[in-house]
């Protein structure tokens, strides 16, 4: 396990708090009708994006999902511009043309959320191919995906190629137990999604997705292995989708009390003190202060987003093509 400093741990907590506050704010504003379209929240899964992205460089790539706010924040996107994007404003990361499901920040290697479930594997693997075989640099690509997405054929094509050519890819499975309204057990042949890694001759590891330190350790190992040219790793992070599939989901397929019990038992923020590595200590007051700062940061982001303009007609035909 890599050494983690207190400063790093503080940073982990700070990132998780920012994601949590961001999602809570988005949820409230969506329900108030301030945000168009639909949004998918990452509440309860913050430790995965935080731990994985902490193992990456700015120049490394992330392919995200429709539930991608956490990945974007963890990879270092500007929270103000990200919020503005979710509000559909011209000052958003994508000039208001993408929204929640298509948020991207190429300046920090966040190559985009993807509205198509399972659409990211090939993109990440292709980016890794470019790095290793064409441009000969040591950039690593990470692709996040859920247990539902692991049933897409694209996973198998990408995993095979990545392993066959030892491409620098890390497959990060957020095993949150639900594919929209369908429990993974009813549609998936394997007990653990990472069992599939063996079919492609790549390491498959299972981590506690609620433990940011455990996730970070696994990610560091996988990223270093990829950078060394030894090929892809499959990380299965066990977690649970606390929110509905989307904001407004009536969740008729499960019991709210059960979900809340799981959240109570596994919330990566409330249990942070209990999982600190040896030698690192925080007081609750310290943590409260970090959370308050994150809340203030997100409130400012919301204020910024509300203050921005919507794109005008002149934007309409821009960027369909480069020339």
């Amino acid at each position, binding site marked *: 396990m890599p050494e983690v400093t207190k400063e790093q741990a503080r940073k982990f907590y700070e990132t998780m708090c920012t994601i949590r506050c961001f999602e809570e704010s988005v949820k409230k504003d969506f329900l108030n009708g301030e945000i168009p379209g639909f949004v998918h929240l990452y509440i309860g899964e913050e430790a995965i994006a935080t731990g994985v992205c902490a193992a990456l460089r700015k120049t490394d790539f992330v392919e995200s999902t429709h539930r991608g706010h956490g990945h974007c924040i963890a990879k270092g996107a500007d929270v103000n511009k990200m919020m503005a994007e979710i509000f559909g404003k011209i000052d958003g990361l994508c000039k208001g*043309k993408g929204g929640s499901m298509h948020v991207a920040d190429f300046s920090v290697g966040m190559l985009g959320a993807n509205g198509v479930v399972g659409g990211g594997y090939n993109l990440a693997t292709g980016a890794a191919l470019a790095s290793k075989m064409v441009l000969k640099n040591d950039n690593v690509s990470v692709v996040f995906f859920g247990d539902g997405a692991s049933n897409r054929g*694209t996973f198998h094509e990408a995993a095979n190629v990545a392993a066959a050519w030892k491409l620098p890819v890390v497959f990060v499975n957020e095993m949150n137990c639900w594919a929209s309204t369908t429990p993974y057990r009813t549609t998936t042949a394997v007990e653990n999604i990472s069992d599939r890694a063996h079919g492609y001759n790549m390491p498959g590891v299972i981590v506690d997705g609620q433990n940011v330190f455990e996730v970070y350790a696994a990610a560091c190992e996988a990223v270093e292995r990829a950078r060394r040219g030894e090929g892809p790793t499959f990380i299965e992070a066990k977690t649970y989708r606390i929110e509905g599939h989307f904001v407004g989901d009536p969740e008729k397929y499960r019991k709210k009390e059960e979900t809340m019990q799981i959240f109570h038992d596994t919330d990566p923020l409330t249990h942070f003190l209990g999982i600190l590595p040896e030698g690192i200590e925080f007081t609750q007051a310290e943590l409260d202060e970090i959370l308050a700062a994150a809340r203030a940061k997100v409130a400012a982001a919301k204020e910024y987003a509300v203050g921005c303009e919507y794109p005008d007609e002149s934007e309409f035909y821009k960027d369909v093509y480069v020339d």
Partner: protein
Amino acid sequence: MRKITFSEATREAMAEEMEKYPEVFVMGEDLARQGGIFGQFKGLPDEFPGRVIDTPISETFIVGGGVGAALGGARPVVDMHFADFIGVCMDEVLNQMAKIRYMFGGQAKIPLVLRAPDGLAGGGAAQHSQSVESFFIHIPGIKVVAPSNPYDAKMVLKAAIECDDPVLYFENKVLYKETGEVPEKEDEVPYEIGKARVEREGKDVTIVSYSIGMKNARAAADQLAKDGIQAEVIDLITLSPWDKETVLNSVKKTHRLCLVSECVKQGGAMAEVAATVAEEALEYLDAPILRYGAPFTPIPFAPTLEKLYRVYPDDLVKGIKGVL
């Protein structure tokens, strides 16, 4: 002037672009070891070791990986073996390569070329003979080209590789072995994607086509000329975004329009041309628009049936004479 085949012309284009840009590479099925199933990659693997990549039979990876490689900073050329197989990776075309630039607010460029050999080749039947370009002119965000002769094949492919937008390059299987004049490199005139060419001037009717359809267009124009009818022949070359102006100007001159392609006529690329002329130049038409394409059936295998699937120059000649 030297004469080379269409296939050789595309190979030259690849070689010149790979020489010029180290970030250009090509991947697809059966390219490196055998030079492509139509010989269009012959010699490239030796010239550019490691940059001609044989992939597994994984079309979603070939195209999606190409898109990812473009995002990662490369300039990929990906090969579809047979154009029919784009059906396997439609999401990568429709939802990924075509959308990424726009939906991310212009942050990304996708300088990717998807090469797709298409068309009837004699017995290829339903899954190896189609001309599928029409699906893609319906998708904003990608460009669609389909050259009709060796010189264009080379210049259009070079332009496609240098283009920062995703380009679908349809190359007809029958045209591969056809020869044509191609100037030496120093005398080449670069092609600008989106431009059509008036290949032959005339005053009585405008015949518009592209790719293999141009053979019908040229042959019909020759036959009509024998009867004193002067057809203007336009090679669209780029199907999306297409050169409306050249077609409209021609129709304003000839007042008659005949469209021909090898793809299925219903909903075909030429329907867009017909509709645009009807929208923007109806008052210049002195005859109904004639449109020739394949019938609304899958492509049959038996030679007797495949014959019925094709369009012939006589069809155009007869139709044009009927509205003169």
